[in-house]
């Protein structure tokens, strides 16, 4: 194309139209791209079958002596059952001002466990054994003085050092923000509980 021809050629170009086309097609592609991402991203969410598991577990308590702890698996999570001693229960009353949420104001338990012992029967503690910080399984340390000098017995998370009392209530100044979760459960009879359902 020589210079003169180029000029007349350029004069015919409608720049507005070209710009409009560029912008419109870019926008359309962006919308298309975003829409195409959606199914991929959605595929990574659990499918409904996995979410709605209503799994329940029956646990026999007859072999547990005062001070015993046992771990069972419920919906891919560990659940602890602890048979607390009378001394443990007496201790729990003294700890209030050391705890983050002594009265369990944060909703981490069913209504019937919203009490000092965070349980249906004071003697029996049932909690999900996952630290409310980043989900490690804390260790059961009932002996006083083992974790620190003033330790009254409870649960200690070795991941980042969160401490919980024997009701699963978190101490102040810990990385874990809330008390341990109490799962729904009920007593079928004196020596058996059902975890996963309240009624």
């Amino acid at each position, binding site marked *: 194309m020589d210079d003169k021809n180029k000029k007349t050629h350029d004069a015919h170009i409608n720049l507005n139209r070209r710009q409009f086309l560029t912008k419109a097609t870019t926008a359309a592609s962006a919308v298309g791209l975003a829409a195409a991402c959606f199914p991929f991203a959605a595929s*990574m*969410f659990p499918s409904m079958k996995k979410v709605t598991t209503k799994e329940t577990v029956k646990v026999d308590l007859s072999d547990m002596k005062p001070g015993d702890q046992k771990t069972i698996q419920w919906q891919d999570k*560990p659940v602890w059952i602890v048979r607390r001693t009378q001394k443990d229960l007496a201790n729990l009353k003294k700890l209030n001002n050391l705890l983050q949420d002594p009265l369990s104001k944060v909703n981490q338990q069913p209504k019937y466990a919203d009490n000092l012992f965070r349980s249906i029967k004071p003697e029996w503690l049932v909690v999900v054994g996952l630290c409310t910080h980043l989900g490690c399984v*804390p*260790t059961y340390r009932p002996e006083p003085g083992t974790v620190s000098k003033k330790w009254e017995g409870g649960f200690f998370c070795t991941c*980042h050092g969160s401490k919980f009392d024997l009701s699963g209530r978190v101490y102040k100044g810990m990385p874990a923000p809330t008390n341990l979760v109490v799962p729904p459960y009920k007593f079928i009879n004196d020596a058996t509980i059902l975890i996963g359902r309240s009624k």
Partner: protein
Amino acid sequence: MPRRGPFKTWFYTRMPIHKFWQKHYVNYLAPKNLNFWYVFGSLSIVALVMQVVSGFFLTMFYIPTEEQAFNSINNIMQKVNYGWFIRYMHTTGASALFIVIYLHIYRSIMYGSYKYPRELLWVIGVTLYVAILAEGFTGYALPWGQMSFWATSVILKLFGTIPLIGKQLVIWLQGGDAVTGITLHRMFAFHVILFPLIIIILTLIHISSLHYVGSNNPLGIDTSKKDCINYHPYYTAKNLVGIVIFLIIFALVMFYKPSMHGFFIEPTNNIPADSLKSPENISPAWYLTPYYSILRAVPHKFFGAVAMASAIAFLFILPWLDKSPVRSIHYKGTLSKIALLFFVVSFLGLGYLGTLTPTPINIALCRILSLIYFLYFILMPYYTSYEKAKITPKRISQ
């Protein structure tokens, strides 16, 4: 113009890859005073290639399912011909890559290679570092031992601290409300496809942007052509020495001390994953422990995660914190030298503490060292503009 045979002529007329090769390797002009610290870039490439090759072969025998992952690793170690060789190359290689990268980053900090005009090169480098951390983390999950399981669980839960979307994000990443075989399978997908691709692409961008702005040097001064030499053969020869030494050390570790006292392969990971019981002391792989210590130092869920994230975020903005008129530590003032020393000590200290159990004294130490780590960055604009820099020479040999 070198004489070319008919095949080369035919080929190069259609595809001039020799131009790319000459531009980025043979004729790349590098300052003549690059010292041994400059070998770590090439070593990163060597280590990266070893990871890709050994990883490819591991993928042929590894099974990414909850039931089989752990056993398939044992199978590789015991039954696959030279499986132990392939696996030890990959485990040792992961740690070697990180050692080399940390030295490479330290070099860049020491000589002010992040300053004008290499800010973008640096930002690409830090992005690359984050991608490599992600690659390391997803790889750590795959053997599905106790450490794999719990490190994955803890690190994914960190995303849960993000306000509003956190909870859903964790479920999305895990594929359920707990870490399961589903999570393992996607860790595998990330580890063998997504992150390696990102790392390789970023590495190519990293090197081509280096070649646009040119290498810095230990004196941190601008160099003209007169101060430069061709990369090949001069730095080829020099780097080969470094590569051979690296490979000898690599082989010694790989054949005689592949677990490196539990740092490269952790003994706790020889126990299969158990979702009901965490190991006594959970820690991520050694190259993540400095950040893990920073997390432990903060007694708050959200701010702990924020501190951890900002420890890396500060690296990104380093070029804009350094107000010194000179690049290299040689010509900076005493304050910068002391600050750098403190920074290195805090990083190493945090790394070490992150491998221990969180006793009250360890946590107190973590807090002091985290403070030093952050002060290095926060105070940098002040001490670099307050101190008096030395006069830099105009040319390299002056």
